[in-house]
């Protein structure tokens, strides 16, 4: 934590003292600012194009391509595309589904992966090195190769289904919320992030807590987790993004429209005649929660990533 905060505050301290700058430092500062501005433009313009195009009719989007008008809300600007989106797809249902799926995946992911990492980082038991290696080894297996076996497996699992006031067993998890959540709760990268962070917390804290009569779960809950805000924020964002962007898996396992997440909804607009304005409007709408989450957690997220990077 100390290293991390030192690293993040040093550049700010340098730029906050203009009076003491030499010419070389000033030139470097201008250069850095220009470079940053170029990067901002590079990364922000696609988003700006999306937002601006969402306000234009299809033909105008293409007419404006190749000029600065593509990035300006000029011409026949209206909210018609947004109205079209709400007419065409059950947007509220899709976004609610994605919020539920992503939210529950994040909450369970933080719980399960942090507990696994705690056991690996703080408890002493034979074979934990091997277990950690095995967990990390799963990182090299792309999800696409696991998709079909996983589909077969979830189709065999039993589930309880509410039928009025009674419960009935049903074979298969297809077309449910849990099939979109449970397979993605345990995550090797999240375990690794938590493991790395927990490993940096002084063990003396554990010993002090044990002296006070705390068990391992109390140490996890009352000592380690409260100190792990940046790691939790990073795992939350890194779990949320793929859950929110999930496309292949829900495509394979969800058949009912009322259970579909937002990314499947995007495909509704790709017909023989594509309404690009509506595509942009829908894309803008589904980007908002992601940007909001990032803004809420950005300080912790950047701190944790910087911390992980320094510790390599």
């Amino acid at each position: 934590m100390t290293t991390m905060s030192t690293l993040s505050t040093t550049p700010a301290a340098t730029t906050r003292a203009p009076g003491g700058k030499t010419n070389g430092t000033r030139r470097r500062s201008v250069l850095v600012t220009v470079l940053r501005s170029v990067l901002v433009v590079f990364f922000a313009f696609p988003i700006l194009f999306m937002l601006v195009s969402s306000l234009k009719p299809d033909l105008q989007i293409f007419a404006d391509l190749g000029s600065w008008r593509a990035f300006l809300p000029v011409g026949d600007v209206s909210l018609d595309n947004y109205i079209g989106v709400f007419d065409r797809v059950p947007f509220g249902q899709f976004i609610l589904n994605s919020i539920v799926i992503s939210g529950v995946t994040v909450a369970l992911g933080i719980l399960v992966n942090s507990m696994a990492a705690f056991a690996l980082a703080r408890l002493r038991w034979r074979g934990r090195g091997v277990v950690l290696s095995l967990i990390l080894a799963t990182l090299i297996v792309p999800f696409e190769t696991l998709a079909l076996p996983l589909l077969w497996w979830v189709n065999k699992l039993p589930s309880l289904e509410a039928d009025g006031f009674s419960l009935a067993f049903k074979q298969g998890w297809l077309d449910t919320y849990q099939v979109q959540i449970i397979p993605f709760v345990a995550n090797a990268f999240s375990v690794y992030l938590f493991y790395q962070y927990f490993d940096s917390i002084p063990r003396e804290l554990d010993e002090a807590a044990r002296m006070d009569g705390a068990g391992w779960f109390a140490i996890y809950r009352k000592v380690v987790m409260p100190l792990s805000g940046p790691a939790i924020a990073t795992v939350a964002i890194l779990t949320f993004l793929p859950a929110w962007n999930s496309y292949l898996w829900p495509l394979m396992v969800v058949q009912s429209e009322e259970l579909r997440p937002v990314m499947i909804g995007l495909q509704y607009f790709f017909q023989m005649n594509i309404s690009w304005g509506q595509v942009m409007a829908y894309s803008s709408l589904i980007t908002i929660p992601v940007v909001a989450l990032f803004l809420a957690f950005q300080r912790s997220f950047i701190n944790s990533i910087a911390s992980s990077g320094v510790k390599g």
Partner: protein
Amino acid sequence: MSRRNRRIAAASLSVLAVAGLAACSSGTGGNADGPATISLWTHAGGNDAELDVVNGIVEDFNASQDQYVVEVQDFPQDAYNDAVVAAASSNNLPCIVDVDGPNVANWAWAGYIQPMGLPEDTFEGQLEGTLGRVDGEVYAYGYFDVALAMYSRQSILDDAGVRVPTLEEPWTKDEFMDALAKIDGLEQYDYALDMGTGGTGEWISYGYSPQLQSFGGDLVDRSDFQSAEGALNGPEALEWAQWFRGLVDDGYMAQTSGEDSTADFVNGKSGLLFTGNWADTTVKDAFDDAVVLPPPDLGTGPKIGAGSWQWALAEGCEEADGAREYLEFAHDTKYFVEYGNAVGLIPATLDAAAEIPAYAEGGENRIYLEMADQFAVVRPETPAYPFISSVFQKAASDILAGGDPRSILDKAVADIDRDIQQNGGYTS
């Protein structure tokens, strides 16, 4: 928790468990006296016009009898095929599916769909391209077809001084090239021609393989569908490839066009547009003097693709008789007309066309029906088609990018032949 509360909780759980077990034991027989459910999947999600027609047919069928209830599940088009393949992998196929025409043979071979089992005379008067046949048996039928066409403006052709081609007298290859040179000479457009070269996926096979066929080549030897040798790398195919790339070399066409060639044409970026008749409304809305032109005769007559979305009976359907009953019920001119009116594409039967003013004799869209009837070449009806199509897509892209046509086509043939061989000729 107090002892009393624990007792209440335990009793509640017991009641729930018993209720659950009771529900389990009666779950399978619950619907024994009611109508059987037939699930139907469609790719029309997001296309309200088409989906409304599907729902209307289903409502009519459900109201017409009390033995079966058809339930519709819609998917967005681009996600549909993957959803069906995933469902087949987990034995969760519905009873009725819609299937894109060129995939019919593959889905039949893969065991996703079965012969429809309807009398042959059911399909009298239907455009052949709208029937999914495998070994002569009908596996699927469609309500509409699409046609490839060229669009321009009368004023452009007049300024360029070229004649308007007709169905009876389409442009020859020389006339077509002359027209491109003259439109290019107007120096009013970025490119004389837009063939949607920025398109990807099936568009490449659907759009450009008819041109290959018009030269005299083909995607595969259709005598037995066992090899592409000679068809895709013979002298005619080579000539097509050189002509195709030549359009870019001569500056008539972009190597990679914009994302939406119709929008670019309407915005005045090209003088001639080659696309499907789904662009009809956009072009005619934009220009009072829009003209629809047949594709050129590049050697063996004008050719266009055929085969759009069709309905089929899924393999493993427990209510196959009911599903057949639905498919027979739905094959009614009334519904072909409704489809034609809703989607604006070519109605699949002549009877339906006669009831839709735009497609009736003398109607403004009749040309599409005539082209579908006279020039359509069904994409190869072989289970290997999806692979052949993917290979052709890569070959066409490589040719457009300036690769050596002969080596590209030879490699494409080798890839296709290897796939057919590895799959035992797709005969079982």
